[in-house]
């Protein structure tokens, strides 16, 4: 891995273990050395790519292609079954916004814990609390228990925390679909600003947005990298492929009715 690269993924693959019975998981944990109790289901196969520092890369692919699993591997949430992943720098994952919050605690307290999860010292995060509250625009709710928040407020606070941890690498998964127009715009502005100094990996179905933001896109299809390159080339190709798939499907329905 060169010192230039922020993320390097070599032949990474992920197989989930499918169990017939729930209790087979325990049997596997205890007696896995003697017998295999599961079937492997490969979600990702042989994924290899490198992202340089300062690059902004989009990931596209249809539902179920393995995008989220790939992000989970890159964040270190789950381990790849094969291959390896190297990350250089602090990651701020904006995955499912606000899923790690405790409703009984105030926004302020959750921000402190959220910052600690992302590796910030208490002092550092406390110094940034005002900025976070400003960015999230939740006003006096910052000191109210989060169970009183609307879902938009939760998402705004979560984004605000990730935006203020001084990460080197931002990993964004569809986060921008939450919140109202104005806040989505604010997030997009932040990401565009971040793109000037840091590395970004973003998964989105907003193809036009990716086209304006990204230097490169990675197209993942059925768990493998189908193409990597210039968004202006790949995204039209992807759109065409999706359209073709949809047409095939429609034809199959009209033709034989087998797909239905």
């Amino acid at each position, binding site marked *: 891995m060169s010192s230039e690269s922020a993320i390097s993924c070599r032949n990474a693959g992920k197989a989930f273990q499918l169990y017939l019975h729930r209790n087979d998981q325990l049997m596997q944990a205890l007696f896995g050395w003697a017998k295999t109790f599961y079937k492997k289901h490969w979600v990702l196969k042989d994924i290899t790519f490198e992202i340089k520092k300062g690059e902004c890369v989009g990931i596209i692919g249809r539902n179920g292609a393995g995008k989220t699993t790939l992000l989970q591997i890159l964040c270190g949430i789950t381990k790849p079954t094969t291959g390896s992943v190297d990350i250089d720098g602090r990651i701020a994952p904006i995955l499912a916004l606000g*899923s*790690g919050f405790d409703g009984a605690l105030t926004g302020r307290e959750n921000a402190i814990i959220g910052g600690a999860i992302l590796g910030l010292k*208490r002092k550092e995060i406390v110094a940034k609390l005002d900025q976070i509250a400003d960015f999230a625009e939740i006003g006096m709710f910052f000191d109210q228990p989060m169970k009183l928040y609307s879902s938009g407020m939760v998402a705004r606070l979560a984004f605000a925390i990730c935006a203020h941890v001084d990460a080197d690498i931002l990993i964004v998964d569809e986060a921008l679909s939450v919140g109202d127009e104005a806040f989505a715009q604010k997030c997009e502005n932040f990401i565009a600003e971040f793109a000037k100094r840091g590395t970004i990996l973003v998964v989105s179905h907003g193809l036009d947005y990716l086209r304006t933001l990204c230097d490169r896109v990675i197209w993942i299809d059925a768990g493998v990298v189908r193409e990597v390159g210039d968004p202006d080339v790949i995204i039209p190709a992807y759109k065409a492929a999706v359209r073709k798939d949809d047409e095939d499907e429609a034809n199959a329905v009209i033709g034989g009715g087998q797909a239905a």
Partner: protein
Amino acid sequence: MPNILTEPFERAWHHRELIRAVVRRELTSRFRDSFLGWIWAIFAPLAMLLVYTTIFTIATPAVASGVPIYDYAAASFCGLILFNVFAELAARSPTLLHEHVHFIKKSIFPAETIAWTSTIRAIVYGAISFATLLAVRLFTVHYVSWTVIFVPFIILPFMLLMLGTVWFLMALGAFTRDVAHLMVSIVPLLMFATPVFFQVEQLPAGLQPWIKLNLVGDYIAMLRDLVIYERFPSPWMYLGCFVASYAVFLFGYRFFKEYKSVIVDVL
């Protein structure tokens, strides 16, 4: 390659800010919505200790014959403090990962810290009970053994034992809910295999070595030595407990680490 003996500590040190933030949260939020707040943390052990003392005075159990009743109540309470820490953790560990599933699956939350935070929390409540016990001792026998200053040396290896147990049960509990049901059923029974209301020496000689295998019971005996009898536990016993607890600690950590990546997928 991190040293196998110190790796769990290095990881905990690395995540110390997170552990601190979560412990703080757990301690401050527990009594937040109550009017009396932290008074409850003292009230529960105090009430229990007073009730035990009263009942033992009225109806002295056979195992307490020949012992000053205040000492017997205090000895039982020492046993209860450590046993309750164990019971709470053992009953709760198997569901810990299920409770934190959003953290684990959706953010880069280091799941091994959950064992630290729950153990520290349980020890803090144990310490409150212990302080209550010392206060009551001052009140009843007007005396506290000077050897109590060595109690932290008992608690340290006890904590390692608890951490190892929590890691192990946490990982196992992630695979099947049966572990949770099992622990809830057997923990109360384990109390009878632990010298809480009696001393190991009061048992038939043939049974004693078996009961001594119960490390929680050994810690209870050592705690009583320091708190009530003003004497030091046998150094061999201490050393044995320390080594065994450290082994449980390392085993629990290895077990948890081994299955950590699988656990994320099965939760």
